C-alpha cells in the first residue's frame, strides 16, 4: 500500500461519503455543503494525478463561485426541509440491488479493459500549466473566445431573469 494509494482511498471515500450525504440530507444547505466536500476531495484527486492547475481552478471556480451562488440562492429563497414524499417502497427495495449489480458490472468491465495500469509521472510541475495554456491559446483559441461570449450571455440572462417586474 503505497502512500499514493492510501491518499487515493481516503479522498475517494470522502467523495463518496459526500455524495451519499447529498442524497441523505433533507435540508438543501446541508446538501450544498456535502457537494463542496465532494469538490474539494476531487480537487485533491486532481492534485494526486499531477494536474495542479485544474485542481486550483476547480476549487476557485466550482467551490468558490458556483457553490457560493447555490448557497446564496438557498438563503434567498429560504428553502426549508423537504417534505416526505409518497414514492413507492418497491422502488427502493428492488431498485437498490439492481443498481448495485449494474455498478458492479460496469466496474468489472472497466477493470478488465486494457487501459494501461501504470500512469507515468508528470514531467515537471510548471510544465503542466504551461502545456495547458499553450494548448488553450493555440489549438483551442476559438472555443476559448466562444466561452467568453457564452459567459457574457449567461451574465445578461441572469440579470434579465432576476429583475423585478416593472409594475
Amino acid at each position, binding site marked *: 500500500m503505497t502512500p499514493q494509494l492510501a491518499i487515493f482511498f481516503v479522498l475517494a471515500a470522502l467523495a463518496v461519503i459526500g455524495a451519499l450525504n*447529498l442524497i441523505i440530507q433533507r435540508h438543501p444547505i446541508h446538501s450544498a455543503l456535502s457537494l463542496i466536500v465532494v*469538490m474539494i476531495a476531487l480537487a485533491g*484527486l486532481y492534485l494526486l494525478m499531477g494536474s495542479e492547475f485544474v485542481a486550483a481552478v476547480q476549487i476557485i471556480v*466550482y467551490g468558490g463561485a458556483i457553490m457560493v451562488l447555490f448557497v446564496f440562492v438557498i438563503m434567498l429563497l429560504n428553502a426549508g426541509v423537504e417534505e416526505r414524499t409518497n414514492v413507492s417502497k418497491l422502488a427502493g427495495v428492488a431498485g437498490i440491488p439492481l443498481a448495485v449489480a449494474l455498478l458492479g458490472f460496469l466496474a468489472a468491465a*472497466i477493470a478488465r479493459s486494457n487501459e494501461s495500469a501504470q500512469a507515468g509521472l508528470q514531467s515537471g510541475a510548471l510544465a503542466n500549466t504551461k502545456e495547458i495554456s499553450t494548448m488553450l491559446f493555440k489549438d483551442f483559441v476559438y472555443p476559448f473566445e466562444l466561452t467568453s461570449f457564452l459567459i457574457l450571455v449567461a451574465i445578461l440572462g441572469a440579470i434579465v*431573469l432576476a429583475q423585478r417586474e416593472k409594475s
Partner: protein
Amino acid sequence: MVPTSYYLILSAVLFGLGVVAFVFKRNVITIFMSIELMLNAVNLAFVAFSQARHQSDGQVFVLFVIVVAAAEAAVGLGIIILTARNRQSLNVERVDLLKL
C-alpha cells in the same frame, strides 16, 4: 501509482450517485446540485484519461466543462428563482403543470 481504472470506477460511482439524487430528490435546487455532481464525475474521468495518455487535452476540456457549468448554474438558478416566486414552492412535484 494509482491505476487509471480506480479513478474511472470512482467516477462511475459518483455519476451513479448523481443520477440517484436527480431521480429521488424533490427540491429543485438539490436536483440542480446533482447535475453539478454528475459534471464533476465526468471531469474526473477526463483528467484520469489525460494523465494516462500524457496529453493535456483532457485537462483543457475540463476547463471548458467548468466554464459551461458556471454559465449554466447562473442561468438555471435565475430560472429557479423566478419559478419559485411564481409558484411559492420549491417542490418539483408541484411544478408539473404549465398552468399555475
